[in-house]
């Protein structure tokens, strides 16, 4: 018998009941809740007079539409100026109180983007099933956990039953071997993968990332990669457990206590695909060939290396695809053949569940140290992923580096990634963004998003347009320690 993939192992370990019709009941260990996709689920529980099955499995935090200015945040929920946002955050707050669910409230230092908070707290552990009413839940797969986004009906289903009705996915392995070039990051790997297989390339698959380039990544880098599995159509992204995983988890608030730590670690070490496991599909990438990536269009698959150019529709033979490119270019205000480094920017956003962890902020700070944000920009902002990330960055002096360079240093939340709060692009504005989606209107009505790594966004902020981080040599006006 062939060995099992990591996904097979996780599936088997949580299988409550396999049914004849191909569906199965899968047990859920952790549910993360936020204010946008949970109110109707709690309302459903109330209407049906149901209670949560297991309270200690749920953790909540508001993130999508919390303001990020200190002015609004310092007052707490009452300080949220937008009425509908305030009602939604208040609703999460009262639902957590009513149902007795642990919440890191708006001004708790542990508050932040759910996908930053879960791992940071050790609330995401190897071997778990993790769900959240948010498609970027795939992030948690970086820990060898089976994690995926769900809709509100399923949020309610998990609250009420601790289970989900699932159908087993197929196994896809993305093998990335070799060494990344200087200045090339996890974000560039995942953008290159999406550019390669397309936004539907992973549909129906659990996508495991493997190979020496993945093994060499920190947990932050692995989270960035798994986070965007959904942008390639895969609900689930996975990385096998190794010492990097275990070291990251150790001593976090929700991690196993000393008496069971060794037992847990022994179990976690099995959370890798067997060497003879069979995948339904395997895709190979050579890490050494990956350039820093920049998206030019309105879908994450519309991406190209920094030395490249915007594609010309006349080169595309498939009619539907050509129309898609034409529409994207029109929306983005770009023309075929235009060099990526010629795209002029209006704003720069460093943040989101993809790239707002401490390592991301360090990488960006390293780039901007001693430089000034280009006067051609309207705004450059840094939004830490959580209160704890913010505190750590401030201890390291990163906030000072950013502020001296002319960046705004904000309070934690999803912010301009999806612009549900006041942080948004104006119509026609180009933004270098470390987020995950460049859909039309995503960062603001008529806004034009270019997805990049934190280092690339930081360098673009200094120059006012994209530059190749590998060859860029800024003139630093001041030396910071």
């Amino acid at each position, binding site marked *: 018998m062939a060995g099992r993939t990591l996904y097979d192992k996780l599936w088997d370990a949580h299988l*409550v*009941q396999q049914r004849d*019709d*191909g*569906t199965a*009941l899968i047990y859920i260990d952790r549910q993360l809740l936020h204010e*946008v*996709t949970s*109110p*109707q689920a709690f*309302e*459903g529980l109330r209407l*049906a007079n149901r209670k949560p099955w297991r*309270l*200690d499995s749920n953790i909540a935090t508001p993130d*999508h539409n919390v303001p990020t200015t200190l002015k609004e945040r310092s007052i707490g929920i009452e300080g949220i100026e*937008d009425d*509908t946002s305030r*009602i*939604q955050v208040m609703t999460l707050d009262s639902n957590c109180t009513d149902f007795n669910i642990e919440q890191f409230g708006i001004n708790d230092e542990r508050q932040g983007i759910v996908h930053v908070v879960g791992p940071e707290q050790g609330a995401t*552990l190897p071997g*778990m099933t993790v769900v959240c*009413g*948010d*498609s970027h839940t795939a992030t948690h797969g970086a820990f060898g956990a089976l994690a995926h*986004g*769900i*809709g*509100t*009906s*399923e949020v309610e*289903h998990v609250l*009420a*039953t*601790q289970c989900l*009705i699932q*159908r087993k996915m197929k196994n896809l392995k993305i093998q990335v071997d070799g060494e990344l070039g200087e200045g090339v990051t996890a974000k560039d790997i995942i953008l290159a993968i999406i550019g390669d297989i397309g*936004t*539907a390339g992973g*549909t*129906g698959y659990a996508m495991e990332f493997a190979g020496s380039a993945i093994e060499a990544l920190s947990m932050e880098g692995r989270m960035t990669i798994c986070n965007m599995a*959904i942008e390639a*159509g895969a609900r689930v992204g996975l990385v096998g457990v190794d010492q990097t995983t275990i070291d990251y988890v150790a001593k976090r608030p929700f*991690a196993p*206590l000393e008496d*069971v*730590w060794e*037992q847990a670690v022994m*179990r976690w070490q099995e959370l890798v695909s067997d060497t003879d496991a069979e995948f339904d599909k395997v895709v190979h990438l050579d890490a050494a060939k990956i350039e820093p990536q920049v998206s030019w269009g309105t*879908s994450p698959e519309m991406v190209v290396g920094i030395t490249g150019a915007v594609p010309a529709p006349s080169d595309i033979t498939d009619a*539907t695809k050509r*129309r*898609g490119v034409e529409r994207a270019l029109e929306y983005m205000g770009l023309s075929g053949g235009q060099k990526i480094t010629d795209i002029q920017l209006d704003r720069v956003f460093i943040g989101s569940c993809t790239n707002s962890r401490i390592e991301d902020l360090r990488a960006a700070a390293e780039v901007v140290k001693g430089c000034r944000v280009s006067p051609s920009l309207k705004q450059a902002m840094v939004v830490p992923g959580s209160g704890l990330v913010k505190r750590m960055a401030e201890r390291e002096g990163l906030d000072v580096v950013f502020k001296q360079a002319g960046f705004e240093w904000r309070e934690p939340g999803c912010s301009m990634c*999806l*612009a549900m709060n006041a942080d948004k692009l104006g119509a026609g504005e180009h933004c270098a963004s470390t987020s995950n*989606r460049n*859909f*039309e*209107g995503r960062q603001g009505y*008529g806004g034009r998003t270019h997805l990049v790594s934190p280092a690339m966004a930081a360098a673009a902020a200094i120059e006012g347009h994209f530059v190749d981080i590998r060859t860029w040599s800024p003139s630093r006006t001041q030396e910071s320690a």
Partner: protein
Amino acid sequence: MDKFVRKQGLVAPLDRSNVDTDLIIPKQFLKSIKRTGFGPNLFDELRYLDEGFPGQDCTNRPLNPEFVLNQARYQGASILLTRENFGCGSSREHAPWALEDFGFRVIIAPSFADIFFNNAFKNGLLLITLDDATVERLMTDVEQTPGYRLDVDLVGQCIHTPDGETIEFDVDAFRKYCLENGLDDIGLTLQQADAIRTFEARYKADNPWLFRS
């Protein structure tokens, strides 16, 4: 959830691939704490010429005459015909809520994004996957034939076209059962409460660190 057995309806074509959930229902409307009322903001950025805000009366907003759902011949459509990877992007269930609230009950495409696919069925929408060639042919027929209607029979798993053709489709047996009976699957799962408890007790003994109480 309303039962779905058979639906005859006017077809509207959305000739575009990778329609994402941000396009189906932009984020500003996700601030609602209700499940209903999203219909007027379905495809908001395509449908109107101005920027939409939550809670606004949409009846006097400037319509984009180019957008297919604003054209007179497609008023009252309940079947949406579109291209590959429909519903990609976020997990927001507001997307199927908006489609349903607008009046759609059936969506036909060569492929759908996974999370959207799941969410749609839980809200009484029937999603039908047909091959590229068939979608292409239907797209042409719909555009060339004003008043083009399809008759979708879930029980028989087939679509009847106006010129007498029958197109068969696959549907997951469990989803079909839930749609036909208008069932809430939480109730169905809770019928298995004993099996869940038995699993949980064994699982807890094996993984004590995953339980804090």
